[in-house]
C-alpha cells in the first residue's frame, strides 16, 4: 500500500516522544481505577469499638464485631490460664505472640497475649489463620478441640486456651487485636 509514498521517519524523536507521553499518561490513568478498590475513608474511620465485659462470667465467652471481623472474648478459668502459661513457646508451631500491640518477634508466651493483671481476659480476632473460617469454641456446646481452646471445622485446626495453634494446617496463632481497658470491665478495641 505504502510503496509509492515515502516511508516516514518513524524513529523521529518527536514521534517517539509523543507516543511515549501518551503511553505514560495511559499507564498513570490506571492508578485511580486500582486505588478506588482500597478501603474508603469511611471504612478506615470506623476504627474503634467499646465492649462491656461485665456480663461475661468466668468460663464464658462472647463474640463482638470490629472492622467487620468477629472478636473472641473469653473469660478464662484459672485452670485454663495455668495450662496456657505452662506451654513453652519453643514447642509450639508458631513462636510469635501475634499480638498487634507487640513486635513480631515477641515469643508466644501466654503473658504476651493478654494484659498484665487481666490474665483471665483473652481477646482474639476470631478468624482461623489457615483460610479465614471462624473456629468453634465460643458457644457452650461447641467442640473446643483437643487443647480446650478453639477448633476450626473447615480443615481441622486446633487452638489452645491462649488461642495458639497446636495441631492442624493453620500456620499462625490467632491474632490479638489492639485494645485497651478503658475501665475495669470495659475494653476499647482499635
Amino acid at each position, binding site marked *: 500500500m505504502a510503496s509509492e*509514498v*515515502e516511508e*516516514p*521517519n*518513524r524513529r*523521529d524523536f*518527536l*514521534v517517539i*516522544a*509523543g*507516543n511515549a*507521553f*501518551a503511553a505514560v*499518561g495511559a499507564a498513570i490513568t490506571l492508578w485511580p481505577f486500582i486505588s478506588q478498590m482500597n478501603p474508603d*475513608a*469511611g471504612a478506615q*474511620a*470506623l*476504627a*474503634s469499638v467499646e465492649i*462491656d465485659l461485665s*456480663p461475661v462470667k468466668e468460663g464464658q465467652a462472647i463474640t463482638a464485631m470490629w472492622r467487620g471481623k468477629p472478636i473472641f472474648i473469653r473469660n478464662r478459668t484459672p485452670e485454663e490460664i495455668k495450662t496456657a502459661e505452662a506451654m513453652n513457646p519453643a514447642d509450639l508451631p508458631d513462636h510469635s505472640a501475634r499480638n498487634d500491640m507487640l513486635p513480631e518477634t515477641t515469643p508466644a508466651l501466654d503473658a504476651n497475649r493478654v494484659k498484665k493483671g487481666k490474665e483471665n481476659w483473652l481477646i482474639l480476632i476470631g478468624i482461623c489463620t489457615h483460610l479465614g473460617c471462624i473456629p468453634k469454641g465460643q458457644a457452650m456446646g461447641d467442640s473446643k478441640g483437643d487443647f480446650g481452646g478453639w477448633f476450626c471445622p473447615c480443615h481441622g485446626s486446633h487452638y489452645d486456651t491462649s488461642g495458639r495453634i497446636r495441631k492442624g494446617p493453620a500456620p499462625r496463632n490467632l491474632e490479638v487485636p489492639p485494645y485497651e481497658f478503658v475501665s475495669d470491665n470495659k475494653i476499647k478495641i482499635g
Partner: protein
Amino acid sequence: MMRAMKNGPLAALALLVGAAVAPAAYAAGGEHAHIERQEWSFGGFTGQYDKAQLQRGFQIYKDVCSACHGLKRVRFRNLFEAGGPEFPEDAVKALANEWPNKITDGPDSEGKMFEREPKAFDPILGPFKNDNEARAAQNGALPPDLSLIARARNVEYTGTWWAHPFSMLRDIATGYQEGGADYLYALLTGYHEAPADVKLGEGMSYNVAFPGHQIGMPAPLAKDNFVTYQDGTGSLDQNSRDVAAFLSWAADPSLNARKSLGWLVMLYLVVTTGLLYVGKRRIWSSIPH
C-alpha cells in the same frame, strides 16, 4: 483544519435569526433576582480553599446555623482531614464529644436503642431527628440539611437572551462553579425591610435574593447581630462570606485535590497534544492531503 466550517455562512444566518427572535424572547425573562458574583479563594484555575476562612465559617455554622440545620453528610473527621478546615484532630474529637446532637445507636445487649456522644466518624447532626420533627418545630418550614446546599443552589442567568450563550462560554472557560456560594452570600446579606407594596405572610421575612422574596428563615445574621471571631473582628458581610465558603467546602470537599491535580492533567494533555500534532506532521510530511 476544519475546511467545512469555512464554507458555512453561519454567522450571517445566526445574526438574522437572532435579530428576529430578540424582542419576543426578552419579554419572557427576568423572574429571578440578580445575584452579584463574589471573589472566592477557591474560584478559577488554581483556586483552593482558605483554611482560616473555612475555620471561621465553621464557627458561624456551629454558633448560628446548627441551631436548626444539620450537616449530615459531613463527618467530624472531615474537619481535620486534608483539604478542609484542618482543625487539630484532638480539638475536633473534643468538639464531637460535646456536640449537643447525639447519635442514636444500638440496639444494646438489652435490645434498646441508646444515645451516645458522636465520634470522629459520625455525621454532624442537626437538632431534629427527622423532617417531620423539624417542620413541627419550625411552623411548618423545613430547615434543609446544609451538606449539599452550596451545590444544590445556583445562580440563574438574568441577562438578555442573546448574551446567554456567550455568558455560558465565559463561565466554562473561566471555570465558574461558585454559583452556590454567590447565592448563599447574597441570601445571608439580602434581608431587608419589605417594600410597602409587598404583604408578607405570617412568620415570613423579606429577602431580595430568595426566589419570590418571601423566606421562612428569619435573618440568622444582621448588621448589629453577628458572630465575633477570636481575633475580635467580625461583621455581617464577613460572617456571610465565611459561612458560604465553609458550606462550599462541605458540598465539594474534593475541590483542593481536584484543582491541584487538574492543572497537571491539563498541562500534560496540552503538551501531549502538541507533541502528537508535530509527530503527525512529520508522518504526513511527504503526503499532500
